[in-house]
């Protein structure tokens, strides 16, 4: 843990500039299951991204690519929101590829 800062070393009012601080890994609360995605069933509605209470849903531009487990608390909201059933909750030990993919190629952004 870095040494604690003194009053004069903190920005006025304790303002935190995102790019000047390390981002805390907040996934420590997750117990048991994690979301995984079959991109072949994804229609890129991005509702998972909208509803994720943290920043665990990763997009590139406007395209869903998967999950960042460092921030996922396993709340299951993304899986609940996923109408085509592309997102499912899997056991923590389940092997997944990058960004929690279960195989199958994504459709990508239908507009592209």
């Amino acid at each position, binding site marked *: 843990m870095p040494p604690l800062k003194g009053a004069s070393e903190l920005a006025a009012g304790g*303002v935190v500039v995102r790019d000047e601080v390390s981002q805390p890994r907040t996934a420590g609360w997750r117990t048991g299951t994690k979301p995984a995605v079959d991109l072949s069933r994804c229609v890129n509605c991005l509702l998972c991204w909208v509803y994720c209470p943290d920043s665990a849903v990763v997009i590139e531009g406007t395209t869903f690519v998967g999950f960042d487990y460092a921030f996922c608390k396993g709340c299951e909201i993304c899986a609940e929101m996923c109408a085509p059933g592309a997102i499912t909750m899997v056991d923590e030990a389940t092997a997944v590829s990058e960004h929690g993919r279960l195989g199958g190629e994504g459709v990508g952004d239908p507009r592209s």
Partner: protein
Amino acid sequence: MTGAEAVAHAMRQIQPDVVPVYPITPQTPIVETFAGFVSDGRVATEMIDVESEHSAMSAAVGAALAGARTMTATSSQGLALMVEVVYLAAALRAPIVIAVGNRALSGPINIHCDHSDSMLARDSGAVQLFAQNAQEAYDLTVMAPRIAERRDVLLPVMICQDGFTVTHAAEPVVLLDDGAVRDFVGDYEVPYPLLDVRRVTTHGPFAMPEYYFELKHQQVEAMAAALDALADVAREFARISGREYRAVEPYALEDAERAVVLLGSTAGTAKDVVDDLRRDGERVGVLEVRAFRPFPEESVRALLSRLAAVAVLDRAVSPGARPPLYAETATALHGLPVAVQSYVYGLGGRDLYPASLREVFAELTAGASGSETRYLGLRR
């Protein structure tokens, strides 16, 4: 014009970006007059008609942190409702200017002047400057954004004027040219604009025991800097106006043996009484405390150190303890051979007449009692 109108004109000349405000007696003529300027297109201010003073201050905090120069106005229960968020404004370092028409807090419900409303906010971290008359209310309002927005201050600033006695009483007021005020206040530049998407910031983060103490102490430092800011801004203001304001205003104190210490419009009455008594050869004076927060302890001590006896007149009570101005003054004079007598006067708008002040000076001659507070004009 009245004190309220004078402050509304100061706001017109400052042209704040945002004014979220809710009307309340006796502040209402401030917002009413200013709303006229807005509807007549004389200012481009975004005026937000909020549903309460809690909302007014909440909107003000958001606006100020986003980078908008922000002002509001309130009194009494309105300030009481605001206070929760005034603490946040100070903590988030939002330099909001708050025009206050001082009025007694309920209850019993009352609409007239005392200082209990401002005293409720005395530990909020807001700067509190008290005006004696409409001219001072105008001048201090013009100075306020510069004090509030200085980088080492960044605190809300309350400009307090006595309800009705100043807000509603018409007297001559010298206004500066609009351009002179615009040049004087300059532009507001916020250190960390909330809406800057290129530099994303978190404002008001949760502070656990490791950091709360440090962030609170920042406000202590900022308040100390506000005393310097007031002196600097006042010097600059004197150059454009010819009127210089100090954190404390001594009146006939040089050779005085006895003096009264007080806030607000009653200082004017006290100065008249002092003029009369001096004609009779009495060595009496007045110390008008303009800055209650930050409290200019060193100046108060220096200005009163040679006196024999001092009466501190509070227009607020602290049931179960000494009233606030007395407590600060007695602390400032600690260890000096100055007798300090506490008085409370004028609660709920009861007038203090010159005869009562003459009585105070006479009682000081007879001797001060450090052990009890006297209540002027109270029927037992």
